[in-house]
């Protein structure tokens, strides 16, 4: 019976990862599709490939950080189930109201809420939460500063060029590289969050040794491949229909702006993945797009959309934690 429940919860975690890819696909491909560098089906294949291959290039430190958010002594099947339900319910709720919420923060909030409902505040790893919480503001701000600096540098480099079409052509080609880099960062940071949850569950049920929690390289390959495979499949499925996204909603981007925003966001994701900091890829690309837009003029940024993003930042962790805590109490009552 326990094994069946573990399989069900692992499957829910992988579905959550798939939906994450589906939801975030547009972040990676919106600019390459909008500027007609690639057709939508080519763009999603390109992004999915880099999502999948990320495990071979970037370290798995984020997975370890997520696995340790709640004390491993209290992690159970019911707790992970409640955490995932909190995140899924919160994502559905925010999608219903059109708030661009972060799946990553919803997942972290879900685990924290379920952990607190089970054993109180002391089982939550305060250092990890602090690190995640401060980077809710830092990651988009790093993206913003880098995006601003890159677009100013690029504008300075090309401002004397009279051959506008040649400049645009070069940047259209460069978008392939920047979109690949962003997809790589997205695959690394987001797939590892689910990997961390699955690892915590399988350690708590004695299917994995507890040394997996301390050594990222010890995470079994099947977990790594299923998480990266799920996010890549989600990207392939989601990208088909979602093209009009942050790239066009927040501010209109030219090929040069697209390259600057994606490169800035990719650099931020590489740094945070390397340091083992879970961040939202959506927030990071949003910050970078705002940076690029505000280098031109502040009115280029649609502030009502940016304001909704900020509300989602503030509400996601407490909201998903609350839903997860309620789910945990219901599961506990029923069992």
């Amino acid at each position: 019976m326990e094994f069946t429940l573990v399989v069900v919860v692992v499957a829910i975690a992988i579905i959550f990862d798939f939906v994450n890819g589906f939801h975030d696909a547009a972040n990676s491909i919106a600019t390459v599709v909008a500027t007609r560098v690639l057709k939508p089906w080519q763009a999603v294949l390109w992004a999915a490939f880099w999502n999948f291959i990320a495990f071979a290039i970037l370290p798995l430190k984020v997975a370890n950080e997520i696995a340790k958010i709640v004390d491993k002594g209290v992690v159970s099947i019911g707790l992970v189930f409640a955490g995932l339900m909190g995140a899924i319910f919160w994502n559905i709720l925010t999608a219903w109201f059109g708030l661009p919420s972060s799946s990553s923060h919803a997942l972290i909030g879900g685990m924290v809420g379920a952990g607190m409902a089970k054993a109180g505040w002391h089982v939550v790893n305060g250092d990890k939460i602090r690190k995640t919480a401060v980077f809710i503001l830092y990651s988009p701000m790093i993206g913003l500063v880098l995006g601003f600096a890159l677009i100013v540098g690029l504008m300075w480099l090309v401002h004397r060029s009279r051959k506008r079409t040649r400049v645009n052509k070069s940047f259209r080609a460069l978008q392939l590289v920047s979109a690949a880099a962003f997809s790589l960062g997205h695959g690394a940071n987001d797939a590892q969050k689910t990997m961390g949850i699955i690892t915590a569950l399988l350690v708590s049920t004695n299917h994995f040794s507890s040394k997996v929690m301390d050594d990222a390289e010890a995470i079994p390959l099947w977990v790594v491949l299923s998480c990266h495979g799920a996010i890549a499949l989600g990207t392939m499925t989601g990208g088909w229909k979602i093209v009009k996204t942050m790239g066009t909603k927040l501010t209109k981007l030219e090929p040069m702006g697209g390259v600057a925003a994606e490169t800035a966001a990719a650099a931020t994701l590489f740094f945070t993945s390397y340091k083992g900091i879970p961040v939202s890829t959506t927030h990071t690309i949003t910050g970078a797009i705002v940076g690029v837009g505000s280098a031109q003029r502040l009115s280029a940024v649609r502030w009502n959309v940016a304001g909704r993003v900020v509300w989602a930042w503030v509400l996601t962790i407490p909201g998903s934690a609350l839903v997860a805590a309620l789910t945990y109490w219901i599961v506990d009552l029923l069992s």
Partner: protein
Amino acid sequence: MDRRGLFFLAMATLCALLVWPTPNELRFVGWWVTGALAALGVLSLIDDALRHRGHGRNGLR
């Protein structure tokens, strides 16, 4: 009023406040972002002031 400069300075203040709860090994990120945003804010305010002076001169001609 340069809204962009004020926005950058407000964000720099927020980031500076966040340096305190940031874990020690990552505080350099907080200082770096605060410094960069403050620099962008000041440069933007200067740029806006210079533009307005330019407009003023044009108006007198």
